């Protein structure tokens, strides 16, 4: 398993769970991946959401991408732990609006750009899990990115 395979897995299964810390209470919700490349994993949300506040206080996050069972292949999981940066660069937000939002009835560019943020998960570790290594967690290959 190479980093390119991990990125491809995320692209093929872009709905992922995104876990954050809220004090000592874990939080998790489902996010849609915007894109991924060798610099990390990119998501978007609005800046006033609780998840963003949690990341500002503790940028450590974990993501879990899953491929549903496809007999005989059981469920597969890719877990990504890392730190999350909050990006509010207008050029990146403008690209985000064009690619992901402009076709939806959510609001104009002028109205939405000030609200949007991009979440960038980088500097971490990827673990790929299959049922056959269910009880061999320590032996699972870890890939740094």
């Amino acid at each position, binding site marked *: 398993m190479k980093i390119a395979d991990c990125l491809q897995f995320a692209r093929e299964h872009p709905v992922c*769970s995104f876990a954050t810390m809220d004090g000592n209470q874990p939080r998790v919700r*489902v996010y849609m991946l915007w894109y991924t490349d060798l610099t990390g994993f990119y998501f978007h949300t609005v800046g006033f959401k609780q998840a963003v506040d949690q990341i500002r206080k503790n940028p450590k996050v974990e993501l879990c991408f899953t491929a549903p069972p496809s007999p005989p292949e059981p469920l597969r999981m890719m877990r990504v732990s890392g730190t999350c940066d909050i990006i509010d660069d207008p050029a990146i937000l403008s690209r985000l609006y064009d690619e992901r939002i402009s076709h939806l009835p959510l609001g104009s560019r002028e109205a939405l750009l000030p609200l949007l943020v991009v979440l960038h998960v980088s500097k971490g570790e990827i673990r790929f899990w299959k049922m056959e290594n269910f009880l061999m967690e320590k032996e699972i290959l870890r890939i740094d990115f």
Partner: protein
Amino acid sequence: MTDFAECVRFANENPVTYIATVEGDQPRVRAFAMWFADVTGFYYHTGTPKSVFHQLQKNPKVELCFYKPGDAAGKMLRVSGKAEFLEDLAFVERLYQDRPWVKDLVKNAPAGGKLAMFRVAHGEAWFWTMDANMRESQVPRVKF
């Protein structure tokens, strides 16, 4: 108005659960196939050699996320609470009846490894849809 029965129904219909736990100040999350949910909570099983078991022993706080894909980004049920480990042998018997393959997992576990069952019996649950996306703090929470 959402009630707990609706949460239980949604969980049983969408049993793949993302379970978030804590390891120090690092959140952890993985997918579990929920065993079942009823009015007494959400039930799962794992093994004592697994990291999730040790994380839950140190800090039982969890959040569960169930997801149903669909139009307008689908629907999520988020449940926060504490995991309680189950010692009652009646649960073991029921688990082996419901999921006989667990016996093989236990048989093949590393030396000393045992079955661990837990439930989230108390906490709060809420549904997320795109309609609620911009007002998440106002969405009614269901206490259970």
